[in-house]
Each structure stands twice: as structure tokens, then as C-alpha cells.
């Protein structure tokens, strides 16, 4: 027989102003199974909690109901209090009299009656509560970091420096990401590669970091602390142990005209290549799609010239299985393909380029060695027009969101251009200048005031060629909305930052959610910005939303800290709200008949099979079995089981049934 204590909270006046708490306590006291009931001003206060503890001991309570605010607010508080008084915390439940009653109804008889109904309903449930014990799961103290851009690099280094093992997986032949493509960075104009490459080298040399480049996540199974990741190491066609990175193969490779990804198509590379001189690891890979040998079966020049015999044409993709305890997703972003904007002439006119291409033009390591020369004829442009928001803040053709980095990099581009071409003229068409950030606004002002960059507030409607010039038609909304036409030598489109093309697929592999634009979703927009909804998987950098370098690095360190916190314990405690397959006396052993439809319904692959054997070891029955480590407690299997052989602790059939009965029977 239950001895339940019911504690009605006034919540100051939040509840008592509309609910007659004294009557609720009175009514609760009369319910079957209720041993004690009272009301109190603040149940969550120290004296309030002490009252509960005292009554548990004094009355020998077997269950506690705190009728106060939402359990999402204070359930842990009261469960802890019960626990300290010797009552199993899962014998305590909260009735939501504040959010679900007093705050949403006016003071009236009906409101008090509803409060009584809510308490009675929960008494019905708590009668059938059972003591539960938290589940301990071990933690594998190795982190998987996916993506070797600045976010992945930062996370890896932080986790490794905290003393934990890291496996960093990068899909390209080198780590470095977009940051390695940038020329100078705003707002300080320090050289991007100068600050990045030391970090890249540190990653490569760190004893706690294992670097897998040219590799991608194939599969992720398991759960927090206990993931099993399968990584596909794409065949590099190189024996990395033998290769010394001397580069002879690259100089001799006959296929030299492949557009370089690193140089955004503005430069060329060979079929056997390292993406850029400072690449980490600085060992080449063979691009199978363009290699003559893979295409026609003839060539093998690289094999002939390699002094160490490191070329392996027969190398195949390799699948590596890793046990990891946490995952940091740092897969970055991409820039929108501007061919959608045919009115801007991208693809039609060689001198209409993207911002990322401009970075390569301005970079000392770029195809023009840092001189701003236009792609069509290599001339130095006298007039450049920059188009901000090419695809951003454009619900009709592009993306409705702001890409956040374009205002700053466009100002930077114009500034770099002015610094390199003193007599040049740069014009920026913009919607708004968004320069919130430390020293950002000052940076933009400097571009305007010191470098004479002309800002025109308005959009560009069309870019077309006439007499060898690019005519940019736009509007200046600040000059009585006069149409403007500028004859430019080059046009730079600040194309929107978008999610990587494989983002959706990757999210599905990891069972994390993503938004309408395929950016990965954080668990909470404010309070859990680096967590995902899947415990143990964290986000860093622009895979979550467009962001600049300092923000990316902060988030990456945040994610690393979360991983370090997770790894600071040997075991994790998990809520014991999990499903269980029943057991009964022989000859049934279990009422489960082993149809395993629960297993197909389970979102976590948490249901496997168990063979019940007799003493001789003969199999008598094949039934379903829930792995409590994998089960997340959704209960979908419970509602699905026809013979009611699976039940879920904390929301059991008896509890829920009794709750419904109690609600409807006053």
C-alpha cells in the first residue's frame, strides 16, 4: 500500500493567487494511497525541501508528489531531496500546477478543481512508481573530430592538450580548410596562413592526435561514451610510410591542367598533387579521376621517378573501425554556387568572380602571387565592384539568412585592393553593413575613410559586358533611389555561405538534426550552442551556421571543453528510463513471442535478441532484449508491442493506465 506525501507549493503567489492551495492539499489528503498532504510557500526553498525530507522519515513515505512548477524546472531538485532522505528519487514526481494551471487560468473554482484533478492524476501514477537506479556506462576516452579546418584543428588541439586521445578525420588530402585559402584576415589583416600553419603542424606532431586525411565518416553507431565509428580512408595511391614528400612525382606528372580546388579554379594542379605547399601532411595523393594511368591504363611516370618506390596504384579504400567516446563535428561550410545568378554573369564573364576566388588572387601563395590581376587577361583592374549579399538575405533566389562574414570580408577585399592598386577604385553595393564584433566597425570605417572605398547602399540588378567593360547596373537607395551604372574591370560577388553538399547525409549517418538549410542543429539556440540533440556529439564552427574565425575558434574550444568534461569521468550515469522485456515463470519465461517488430521500430537499434536456455543449454525461447546502454527511453516499442511484453521504466503501462484512470475518475 502506497504512502504518498503530497506537497502543494504556493510559489510565492504564482500558484496561490489563482489556485486555492489549501483546498488542493485537503482534497489530496483524502485520496487513497495518500498518507500526508500539505501546502507551503516555497517548496524549492531550503525549509521546503527540509519539510519533504522530514515527512519522508516521519511518515515513512513511499512516494512524493510536489505540486509546483514544471518538472522541467525542478524535478532534479526534489528528486535529490528525496534521495538524501533515503527515498528512491524516482518515487518522486512533480505535478505542474504553475505553467499548466495557475499561470494559464484566472482565479476560479474551475482552476482549483483542475489543480485537484492534476494532483489526483499524478497520485494515480505514483502509486505504481518503482525504485529505479541510474545506469552506469563506461566512457571511451578518445574523441573523434570530423573536419580539419580551423574548428577541427582547434578542438583537436584542446582535447589533446587536456590529455585525451583524438582522431582527426579530414576528407581532403590536407587539413587547413577554408582558412588556409584566405589571404589576410579581418580586422587585423594578419596573414591567414601565417597564423594557421603552425597549428596545422602542431596537430600533425601532437602525440595524442591521430590524423586521418583523405578520409570520411562511413558509419557511426553506439551512444555517448561508447560510439563505434567506421572511417573510410580513401586510397591515396601512395605508401605514406615510404613517401618522403620530395615532390619529384608532382613535377614529372604529365597531367598538369586540372583546375586546382585550393585555388578555386584560378590555378592548375597535376593529377598527383598536394593541394598547397604548406599542406599537412605534405605528401601527395593521386586524383584517380584525372590520372592518366587510372583513365587509360598507361603512364605510371610517377612510379618510375619515385626515389622510394612509394606509389601504389593497387591501393584500395580502407575501412577503419574506431571506438570513441565523443564526436566533434567541424565540417565547415561552402560558398554558394553563383551560377544561379545568371544576371550577374558568373560563368559567362571571366572577370566576375566570387569572394573566395578574390582571396586566392590576393593571397601571396595564390595563382597571381598576391597581385590583383583579373582572370580574363591578367590585367590589373582599375575599377572593382563588390556585390554584397549575393545569395544571402534573398528569400526568392538565394538564402533568407545573413551569411554574417561577407560584410567584413568585402570591406577587407576592397581594402586589400586599395593597398595593392593605389589608383584603383572600389565600389561596394550593400544592403546594410553588419560589422558587429570587436574592432569590426572600426575596420569598416577605415576602409571607407582611409582607403576611399565607395559604399553604395543598394542592390545590383544586372552585370553585362559592353565594349570590354563590365557594366554594373544597380540602385543607390540613399540618393533618392537613382539607378546607377558603373563600368568595372572586375566584379566580386560576396556569395552566401552555405552548408556543405554532403551535410544532410552526414547528419543522417550520425543521427543529429539539421535545419532547413542543412546546417547542423544545436541542442538549444542559447544554452546549448555546441551540443547536438544526440548526447556525446558536439558542433564546432560553420557547420552549425556561418561564422567568422574568432567565433569558430571559440566554439571549437567550447566543444573541446564539453568533451573534456565528459572524459573527466570514468563512468557516465544515465537516467534509468529505459525499456525492458518482461520475464515470467516457466514455461513461458517471457510473454515475448519474438516477432521483433519492436526491433524494427526502435530508433536506436537498442533491441536485440536473447536466447533463453534450459539447464542443458538448449534454446527454449528466442525473445527480444533491450540494451539499456543504447535505449534512450522513447517507449515507441512499448506502444507497439501487441502482447505488452516490453514496458518502460518511469512510464510503465501500469503507471500510465492508472494515471488515465485517476484523471477521469474523481
Amino acid at each position: 500500500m502506497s504512502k504518498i506525501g503530497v506537497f502543494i507549493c504556493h510559489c510565492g503567489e504564482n500558484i496561490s493567487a489563482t489556485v486555492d492551495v489549501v483546498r488542493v492539499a485537503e482534497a489530496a489528503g483524502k485520496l487513497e494511497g495518500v498518507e500526508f498532504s500539505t501546502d507551503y510557500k516555497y517548496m524549492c526553498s531550503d525549509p521546503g525541501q527540509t519539510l519533504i525530507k522530514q515527512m519522508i522519515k516521519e511518515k515513512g513515505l513511499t512516494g512524493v508528489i510536489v505540486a509546483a512548477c514544471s518538472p522541467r524546472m525542478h524535478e532534479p531538485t526534489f528528486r535529490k531531496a528525496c534521495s538524501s532522505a533515503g527515498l528512491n528519487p524516482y518515487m518522486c514526481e512533480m505535478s505542474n500546477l504553475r505553467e499548466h494551471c495557475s499561470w494559464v487560468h484566472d482565479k476560479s473554482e474551475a482552476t482549483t478543481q483542475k489543480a485537484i484533478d492534476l494532483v489526483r492524476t499524478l497520485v494515480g501514477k505514483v502509486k505504481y512508481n518503482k525504485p529505479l537506479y541510474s545506469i552506469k556506462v563506461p566512457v571511451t576516452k578518445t574523441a573523434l573530430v570530423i573536419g580539419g579546418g580551423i574548428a577541427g584543428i582547434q578542438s583537436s588541439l584542446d582535447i589533446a592538450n587536456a590529455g585525451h586521445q583524438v582522431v582527426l578525420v579530414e576528407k581532403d588530402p590536407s587539413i587547413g580548410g577554408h582558412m588556409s585559402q584566405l589571404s589576410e584576415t579581418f580586422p587585423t589583416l594578419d596573414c591567414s596562413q601565417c597564423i594557421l600553419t603552425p597549428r596545422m603542424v602542431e596537430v600533425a606532431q601532437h602525440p595524442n592526435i591521430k590524423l586521418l586525411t583523405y578520409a570520411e565518416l562511413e558509419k557511426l553507431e553506439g551512444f555517448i561514451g561508447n560510439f563505434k565509428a567506421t572511417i573510410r580512408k580513401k586510397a591515396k595511391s601512395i605508401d605514406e610510410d615510404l613517401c618522403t614528400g620530395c615532390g619529384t612525382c608532382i613535377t614529372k606528372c604529365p597531367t598538369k591542367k586540372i583546375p586546382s580546388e585550393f585555388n578555386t579554379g584560378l590555378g592548375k594542379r597535376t593529377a598527383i598533387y598536394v593541394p598547397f605547399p604548406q599542406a599537412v601532411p605534405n605528401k601527395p595523393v593521386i586524383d584517380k579521376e584525372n590520372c592518366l594511368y587510372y583513365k587509360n591504363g598507361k603512364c605510371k611516370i610517377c612510379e618510375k621517378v619515385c626515389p622510394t618506390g612509394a606509389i601504389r596504384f593497387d591501393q584500395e579504400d580502407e575501412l577503419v573501425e574506431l571506438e570513441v567516446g565523443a564526436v566533434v563535428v567541424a565540417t565547415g561550410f561552402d560558398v554558394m554556387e553563383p551560377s544561379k545568378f545568371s544576371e550577374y554573369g558568373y560563368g559567362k564573364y571571366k572577370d566576375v568572380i566570387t569572394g573566395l576566388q578574390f582571396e586566392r588572387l590576393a593571397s601571396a601563395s595564390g595563382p597571381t602571387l598576391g597581385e590583383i590581376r583579373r582572370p580574363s587577361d591578367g590585367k590589373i583592374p582599375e575599377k572593382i565592384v563588390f556585390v554584397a549579399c549575393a545569395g544571402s538575405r534573398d528569400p526568392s533566389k538565394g538564402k533568407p539568412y545573413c551569411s554574417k562574414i561577407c560584410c567584413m570580408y568585402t570591406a577587407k577585399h576592397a581594402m586589400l585592393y586599395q593597398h595593392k592598386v593605389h589608383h584603383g577604385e572600389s565600389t561596394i553595393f550593400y544592403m546594410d553593413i553588419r560589422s558587429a564584433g570587436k574592432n569590426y566597425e572600426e575596420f569598416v570605417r577605415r576602409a571607407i575613410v582611409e582607403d576611399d572605398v565607395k559604399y553604395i547602399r543598394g542592390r545590383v540588378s544586372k552585370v553585362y559586358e559592353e565594349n570590354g567593360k563590365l557594366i554594373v547596373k544597380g540602385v543607390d537607395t540613399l540618393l533618392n533611389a537613382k539607378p546607377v551604372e558603373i563600368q568595372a574591370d572586375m566584379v566580386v560577388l560576396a556569395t552566401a555561405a552555405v552548408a556543405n553538399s554532403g551535410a544532410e547525409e552526414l547528419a543522417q549517418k550520425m543521427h543529429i538534426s539539421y535545419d532547413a538549410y542543412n546546417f547542423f542543429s544545436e541542442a538549444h539556440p542559447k544554452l546549448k550552442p555546441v551540443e547536438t540533440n544526440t548526447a556525446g556529439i558536439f558542433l564546432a564552427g560553420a557547420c552549425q551556421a556561418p561564422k567568422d574565425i574568432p567565433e569558430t575558434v571559440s566554439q571549437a574550444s567550447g566543444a573541446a571543453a564539453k568533451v573534456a568534461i565528459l572524459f573527466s569521468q570514468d563512468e557516465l550515469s544515465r537516467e534509468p528510463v529505459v525499456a525492458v522485456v518482461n520475464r515470467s515463470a516457466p514455461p513461458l519465461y517471457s510473454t515475448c513471442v519474438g516477432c521483433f517488430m519492436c526491433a524494427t521500430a526502435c530508433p536506436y537499434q537498442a533491441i536485440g535478441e536473447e536466447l533463453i536456455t534450459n539447464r542443458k543449454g538448449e534454446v527454449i525461447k528466442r525473445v527480444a532484449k533491450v540494451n539499456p546502454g543504447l535505449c534512450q527511453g522513447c517507449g515507441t516499442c512499448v506502444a507497439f508491442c501487441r502482447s505488452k511484453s516490453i514496458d518502460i521504466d518511469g512510464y510503465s503501462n501500469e503507471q500510465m493506465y492508472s494515471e488515465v484512470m485517476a484523471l477521469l475518475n474523481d
Partner: protein
Amino acid sequence: MNEFEPKIVAFVCNWCTYAGADLTGTSRIKYAQNVKIIRFPCTGRIDFMLLLKSFGEGADGIIVSGCHPNDCHYTSGNFHARRRWIMFRGLLDMLGIDVRRIQYSWVSAAEGAKWADVVNTTVTAIRELGPYTDYAKVAGYLEKEANV
């Protein structure tokens, strides 16, 4: 005679609709008292038998609500639930159990106002439909009550 006050049970998931109803509270949006919430971990957990039992015990209406498609905390519990509801609703309809008395909805943790609206429109709709006497007669609880 007072106006008929329907008894409505709401079966909601913990992560979206329960949290959404919390937001209705913190936003102080008012709604009718007739609806009482029972919290489930997920819409996937909501057993059709419990809905049936509710009518048997005198509920005039039922709300079933959870996370929008693709928002499920457990990734797919709501998708399973949706299939189950499609089949269950079809069966009830075939049997002449008034499907207008069960309001299904997706209410996210951010949709406090929507929750109030779902409650109010359901209460209005059930009030118009009147007490579920058809089922009550079968369930026999009216006699039960009369005997008490």
C-alpha cells in the same frame, strides 16, 4: 443548467508539446481549464489503448500532441506515432467512434501560443459536439455514476 464542460485528456510528449505548454504558462497565455495533460516521453509511447480507455472512462475529447515531423527528440517516435494514428483513426471512423473528438497536433517547445489555441479550439469543438453520450451509453458509466 450550466454550460457543458467537456472532460478532455491531453496525451503529450515531454520534449515538444509539454515544453510548449510550459511556454504557454511562462507567456501567461490563458486557455480553458478543461484539458489536463498526461506526460509521455514521446508520442511513440502513446498507446492507442489508452486513448480508447479514456473514452471508456468518460472523456469527451482527447488531444494527442508531440513534436513536428523531423523534430522528434528520439528522431522518429513521432513518425511511428503518425502511422499508428492514421490507422487508428481509420478504424475508429469505420466503427463510428467520432474521430472529431480526437485532436492530433504538432506543438513545438516554441509554440506556446499554438498550444493555447489547440486547447481552446478543441474545447470549443467538443463543447459543440456535446457530451460523448454514444460512448457513455456503451461504457455504462453513466449508470455507474447514477448508482453512486
